[in-house]
């Protein structure tokens, strides 16, 4: 029954906001919602001519029946259409990028997929950010590393459809069969005589062709790819390096005023009174007022708005603002209190949430028992661009200019908190200066919309760094009292985790990123597993933070497996591979089901390239760690040098990855390099603490981010497999911390049980 662990087919790190996953059963996402790239939901595919000649291919996914009807309603048809692909008569191609760009490279790689199947040279392609419109584009979001798996098939279909119709147009012109023609980099070639016609010349005729049945489309063979897998630089790079406006915070509107919104330091405290009259007298201040808020998780917190002419005047007024807070219902939570509580609660048996085999028997029959206690802190997202947004309420309509990860969630929320209709909300998607999950929650959009609703001018609200850190939706901290058992031969026979699961007070479900399951262990061969979980209601807001759940428990479990290997006096690599067992695809063999073959192969590859087993000098160490998250398989080997003062130099990190295939060598590797550095940054000294419901850290002096000199050498190995490509925003992150702490143990014999490592007296140099 050991495989029972995986019967859920659930890697809980893919949880997403309800609005964007569709059906949510409890807090678990259903399988069909995660990887539905089938075309069952595709509603229509349409071509239309454009002014000046050319072709527009409109391609809609996930349309509601209502939208479909609207599109078939005659006159409106053309106006409603929106295109992924537009071919102009000069042969240049415009491709729409549908999802928000927050640094994950999606604005470059989704259009690349279309361009590949369309068979056009990348240099003739220009990319535009599409409008936000569910009817036209289906789901538009940036989260859960899902842009790749969700769009892999639809984007190929968009490109292949246009290519098929261009070929059909050429065949018609030449009076030959389509099968006698082929597409080649912006041209259709007549195979029999070598004649060709450019896409630009064919565009108008192609628009009149019958739209092919998606099932009839022939995708290119991977071996014929000319673009995918290549080093392609970001489409916005020129704008970025010349300082042109792109980000939310860069948005300027005519007559725009600048605002701040001040909330209670203790979460969900309400405004009793404030020195508004005094604040209104300050230079540049236009207005100051209290907003009631609704205290609903992720919506509008109570607070005081200050509207001024300039950002600086708003910031200055914020400093002069004095608020008397009603903290009767505010959070009184304390990190130190939770630490104490966890220690006490997990000292004794707790409620069993999952059990495979019999842990009691494993303990009774054990040759060796290992007990360990791991702690990791709450974290802030610390996007370098603080939360900000512009809003303009005019003529009964609300325009929102948002650097958000979830644009389609905004209208519904605004209709709940303000007297406006969802249909009267228009979202303009802007680039986000880092996402990491923070911008999946649009609390800051609610704030600026509430302010703009009262002011007859466009408003931009900017949070100070201090506000950003105090009012994040944090990565939840955690505690694990672990027990492992070994038999005489050094086999891992049992695993037990006594842990706290923080639950959202509003709904009783585990907080975002806080759903800890036996499946997170990713060791299907252990015959006896027991999870004991104490559910603790939490008020402190928690959010999805890069690789939710995996980002924290990946460290705990991969570190503990190393501990068990050490206790068994066995090689870590061999011990880890034993936990995977035979190469096989578990569960229902979907992308979400654990595939031990892929785990084994990336682990062996990382070990080989990471010189596993090779002798190191005194003071040096090598560590190994694996994790499967967000559909990607990653094994990392870290090499460190540690001096007598516990200064750790990370010399090299080798990363072996299996995400099926790499779509953009540059963007993909940038994500992996960034994940490694983010992993080090997080484990170095980051910790959000709170006392009496208020966050104690405020800026980068007491919540430090890794700096350039500490960045290690990073070597990336891609294992190309036949599996459909999956995302890279997250899965390289979870294995990093354990690879490093295991390496520190290898170098020093000291096991790090508490994150960040500064708590244990270590620092990176």
């Amino acid at each position: 029954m050991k495989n029972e662990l995986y019967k859920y087919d659930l890697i809980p790190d893919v949880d997403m906001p309800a609005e964007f996953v569709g059906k949510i059963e409890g807090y678990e996402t259903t399988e069909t919602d995660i990887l539905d790239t089938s075309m069952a939901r595709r509603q229509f595919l349409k071509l239309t001519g454009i002014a000046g000649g050319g072709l527009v291919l409109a391609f809609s996914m996930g349309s509601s029946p209502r939208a479909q009807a609207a599109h078939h309603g005659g006159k409106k048809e053309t106006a409603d259409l929106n295109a992924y692909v537009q071919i102009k008569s000069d042969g240049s191609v415009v491709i729409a990028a549908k999802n928000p760009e927050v640094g994950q490279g999606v604005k470059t790689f989704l259009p690349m997929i279309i361009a590949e199947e369309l068979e056009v040279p990348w240099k003739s392609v220009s990319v535009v950010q599409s409008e936000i419109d569910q009817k036209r584009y289906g789901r538009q979001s940036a989260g859960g590393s899902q842009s790749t798996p969700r769009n892999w098939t639809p984007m190929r279909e968009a490109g292949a459809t246009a290519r098929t119709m261009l070929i059909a147009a050429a065949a018609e012109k030449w009076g030959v069969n389509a099968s006698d023609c082929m597409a080649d980099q912006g041209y259709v070639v007549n195979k029999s005589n070598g004649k060709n016609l450019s896409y630009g010349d064919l565009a108008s005729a192609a628009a009149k062709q019958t739209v092919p049945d998606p099932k009839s489309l022939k995708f290119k063979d991977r071996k014929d790819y000319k673009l995918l897998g290549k080093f392609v630089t970001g489409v916005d790079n020129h704008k970025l390096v010349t300082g042109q406006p792109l980000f939310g915070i860069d948005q300027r509107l005519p007559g725009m005023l600048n605002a701040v919104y001040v909330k209670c330091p203790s979460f969900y405290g309400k405004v009793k009174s404030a020195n508004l009259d005094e604040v209104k007298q300050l230079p540049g201040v236009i207005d100051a007022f209290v907003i009631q808020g609704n205290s609903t998780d992720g919506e509008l917190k109570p607070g005081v708005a200050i509207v001024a002419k300039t950002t600086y005047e708003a910031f200055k007024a914020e400093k002069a603002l004095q608020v008397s807070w009603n903290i009767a219902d505010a959070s009184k939570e304390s990190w130190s209190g939770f630490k104490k509580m966890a220690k006490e609660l997990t000292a004794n048996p707790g409620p069993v949430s999952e059990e495979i085999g019999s842990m009691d028997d494993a303990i009774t029959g054990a040759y060796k028992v290992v007990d360990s206690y791991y702690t990791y802190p709450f974290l802030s997202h610390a996007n370098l661009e603080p939360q900000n947004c512009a809003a303009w309420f005019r003529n009964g309509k609300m325009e929102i200019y948002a650097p958000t990860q979830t644009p389609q969630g905004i209208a519904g929320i605004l209709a709940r908190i303000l007297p406006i209709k969802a249909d009267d909300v228009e979202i303009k998607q802007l680039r986000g200066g880092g996402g990491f999950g923070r911008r999946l929650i649009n609390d800051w959009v609610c704030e600026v919309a509430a302010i703009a609703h009262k002011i007859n001018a466009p408003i931009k609200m900017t949070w100070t760094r201090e506000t950003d850190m105090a009012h994040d939706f944090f990565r939840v901290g955690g505690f694990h009292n672990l027990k492992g058992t070994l038999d005489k031969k050094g086999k891992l026979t049992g695993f037990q985790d006594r842990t706290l699961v923080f639950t959202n007070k509003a709904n009783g479900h585990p907080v975002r990123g806080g759903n800890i399951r036996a499946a997170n262990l990713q060791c299907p061969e252990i015959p006896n597993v027991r999870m004991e979980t104490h559910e603790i209601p939490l008020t402190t807001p928690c959010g999805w933070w890069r690789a939710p759940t995996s980002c924290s428990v990946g460290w705990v479990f991969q570190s503990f497996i190393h501990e068990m290997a050490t206790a068994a006096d066995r090689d870590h690599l061999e011990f880890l591979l034993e936990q995977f067992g035979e190469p096989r695809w578990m569960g229902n063999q979907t992308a979400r089901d654990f595939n031990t073959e892929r785990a084994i192969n990336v682990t062996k590859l990382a070990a080989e390239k990471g010189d596993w087993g090779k002798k190191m000098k005194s003071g040096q160490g090598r560590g190994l760690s694996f994790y499967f998250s967000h559909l990607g398989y990653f094994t990392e080997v870290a090499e460190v040098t540690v001096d007598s003062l516990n200064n750790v130099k990370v010399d090299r990190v080798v990363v072996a990855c299996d995400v099926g295939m790499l779509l953009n060598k540059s963007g993909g590797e940038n994500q992996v390099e960034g994940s490694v550095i983010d992993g080090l940054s997080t484990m170095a000294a980051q910790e959000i603490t709170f006392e009496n419901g208020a966050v104690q850290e405020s800026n980068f002096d007491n919540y430090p981010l890794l700096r350039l000199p500490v960045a290690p050498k990073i070597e990336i190995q891609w294992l190309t497999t036949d599996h459909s490509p999956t995302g890279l925003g997250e899965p390289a992150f979870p294995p990093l911390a354990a690879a490093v702490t295991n390496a520190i143990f290898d170098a020093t014999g000291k096991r790090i049980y508490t994150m960040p490592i500064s708590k244990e007296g270590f620092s990176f140099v």
Partner: protein
Amino acid sequence: MATIQIKVNGENRTISGIDPKTPLLWALRDHLGLVGTKFGCGKGLCGACTVHFNGTAIRSCSTAVSAVESRSITTIEGLAEDADHLHPLQEAWIEHDVPQCGYCQAGQMMNAAALLSTNPKPSDEDIDNAMIGNICRCGTYTRIRKAIHSAAGNGGNA
């Protein structure tokens, strides 16, 4: 409230009705509409707001606009000679595809440009010392290092 004159990217600009204590960052962004210079921390901790003051890299979030009155400021918008001639660092940044989100990169490049202007062939250690004040939340440091070396090899001492 005061009227302050500064030279930005070679152009004389007059800002009227401004509190002289306004940080240069907000004078650039809100008053002059030059939004390439970014706000990250407001305390000189992250380097996103780096500009050149008479050729030296400074943190515009922690410099009052009055302190640079009548002086010459270069921002990311003025780093390139002109639209057709990017600074070698800008070219290297594109070629090595340094940015992820890109928010910090204006500050990174302005800081790196100041480094190259005094040290055209920096060593790894020189780069470490010069760039330690600039945070990249996305973790593009290895590419930043590579791009600086590449620009230096390009004669990147403009």
